[in-house]
């Protein structure tokens, strides 16, 4: 694949937080890439480091205390080493982010209109009137009913779904190259979740963006993403085109994850479970991070951390990679 098809490339990212109880290894050597126009799903359970990774792409982590290593290349430039001026030019303009809880990420004392306009006034040479006209247009694009009225409302006057639409409008204000979404529908009801996912799919095409969606919900992954990265204990354990991941999961963790969700078609009987608990990030296992819970564990797994290796045929240039000695 041509190098310039990659808009974002993460190489050997590590994020550590020193605490009184020891060093938390939140992200422990993650490499992945995002292609232009692609939707990448990042799936994992709580504490697996997926949100920390997303925050480090935006350089939202205070360092120190966080200790960040590795590189995050955006169009070939390392975001982690970028001077602040350069970073401010990109952040919120070319790379934007939406968060899980729209109420806590909106400013409660600023009306919706000015709040959306703020981003544009910061990044673009436009007047206040132009910005608020664009804000109105954005609200229409994210399908908010009575958009004019909404401009003058405060966040608390809107429902959860409407707030998330406002967040999306803000993220789109400067026509970003990359939209990062951290559990964008987790706080929403299912009927609203379906609306927001449909909206994100539509807007991604209209804006020709690349999108990275972080979620714990494999259903959301199946709905929107073309490729999936599975996180476990601060590591990427599997990476595959979405279809391949669902059809032939290769990592025992992925397999377990797919098996332990009750499907609507599941007949009564017991669910398959992954025994044990997620690993403590202060005390990650030396070998494979999944080894303590793995049904296929061998001696090698406990001793040596497996690297991501390519398996099978690439589907349309998309690789299926897995970090497992036994795969």
């Amino acid at each position, binding site marked *: 694949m041509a190098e310039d098809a990659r808009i974002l490339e993460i190489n050997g990212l590590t994020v550590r937080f020193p605490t009184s109880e020891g060093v938390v290894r939140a992200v422990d050597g993650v490499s992945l890439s995002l292609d232009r126009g692609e939707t990448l799903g990042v799936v994992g*359970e*709580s504490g697996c480091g997926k949100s920390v990774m997303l925050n480090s792409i935006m350089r939202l982590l205070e360092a120190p205390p966080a200790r960040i290593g590795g590189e995050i290349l955006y169009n070939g430039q390392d975001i982690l080493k970028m001077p602040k001026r350069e970073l401010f030019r990109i952040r919120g303009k070319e790379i934007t982010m939406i968060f899980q809880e729209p109420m806590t990420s909106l400013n409660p004392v600023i009306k919706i209109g000015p709040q959306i306009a703020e981003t544009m006034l910061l990044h673009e040479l436009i007047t206040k009137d132009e910005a608020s006209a664009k804000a109105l247009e954005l609200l229409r694009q994210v399908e908010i*009913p009575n958009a004019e009225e909404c401009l003058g409302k405060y966040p608390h006057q809107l*429902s959860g*779904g*409407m707030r998330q639409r406002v967040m999306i409008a803000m993220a789109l204000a400067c026509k970003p190259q990359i939209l990062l979404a951290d559990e964008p529908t987790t706080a929403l*009801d*299912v*009927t*609203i*979740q*379906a*609306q927001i*996912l*449909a909206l994100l799919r539509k807007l991604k095409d209209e804006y020709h963006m690349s999108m990275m969606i972080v979620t*714990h*919900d*494999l*259903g*959301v992954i*199946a*709905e929107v993403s073309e490729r999936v990265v599975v996180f476990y204990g601060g590591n990427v354990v599997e990476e595959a085109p*979405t*279809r391949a991941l*669902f*059809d032939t999961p290769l990592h025992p963790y992925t397999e*377990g*994850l797919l098996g*332990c*969700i*009750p*499907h*609507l078609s*599941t007949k*009564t009987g*017991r*669910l*398959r*479970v*992954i*025994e044990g*608990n*997620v690993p403590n990030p202060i005390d990650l296992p030396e070998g494979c991070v999944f080894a303590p819970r793995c049904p296929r564990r061998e001696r090698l797994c406990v001793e040596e951390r497996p690297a991501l290796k390519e398996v099978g045929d690439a589907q349309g240039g998309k690789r299926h990679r897995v970090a497992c000695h036994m795969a």
Partner: protein
Amino acid sequence: MATMTQAPEAVLLRADNVRKYYTDPRVRRQALKAVDGVSFVIRRGETFGLVGESGCGKSTLSRLVLRLEEVSGGSISFEGKDLAALGRREMLSVRRQMQIVFQDPYDSINPRMTVRQVVTEPMAVHRFDKAGWRPLADKLLADVGLSKDLADRLPHQLSGGQRQRLCIARALALSPKLLVCDEAVSALDVSIQAQILNLMLDLKEEHGLTYLFISHNLSVVKYISDRIGVMYFGKLVEVAGKEELFANCLHPYTGALFSAIPTAHPDAHRERMILKGDVPNLYEPPMGCIFSDRCPFVRAKCRDVAPEMRSFGEGHEVACHFAGELDIPRGWEGAL
């Protein structure tokens, strides 16, 4: 109603036209109708699932069932006894029979009690013989899969899954007949959720429990329940056995709820019905049918007259004027 003709001893809990209105005259004159005329029965040994979106009144209903709050109208009876008529002392003995597991295992345990203290507290409240506390506590912890070594730990030393196991052990301490699970697995990671669901099925068999299982997650509710009630905006809109409900849902809201479940596989193509608009404002409910402002099949009658529950075959009840006449997509096929 078909369900009402069951022999009385088969029915463990009966809710009859239950209403709960909240009023605060300082804020508004009209009442907030959190639960508005809900009737259902829970039979001994079954799992009755209650699904609905946030704000639909399902948690309020669970609190009413346990009489943690008083009903504004209608009645709830447990083993034939009207809860509202019971005195404090009688209520205490009835409450031994019904226990609850809450959603957030972090908020529902006293952080300064050890695991053993948490499990023995109900025994103290109900004046069990003190000699029996420790063995019973050990048995309960073993039942829910917590190792003995954890008995002297504090809650913050436990993981989320372990805490939820502890909440279940505490609820089982009094050998209840009815266990209310209010979003009991919603705060857990999927791999832990599966462990807890399996545990609940095991415990049900071992202890002969009856569950009222409340969740917004349809897949989970379908997995664990025998019968399912769908709530929308304070009302029960459809009740049916789970196979019947999924094979033949008749209320458009149920159809929309099924449609909204994410797809299990990227290749699954489904005929879907995505609702427009938001959950209505609780203070300004639409006239007529409460679903009329979002219903894709809405007709003039729906905006004028609120539909009553009607029976469609055995145990299948629907509150929709046009139930059975609508073409509701089977949106759940291929869903997660």
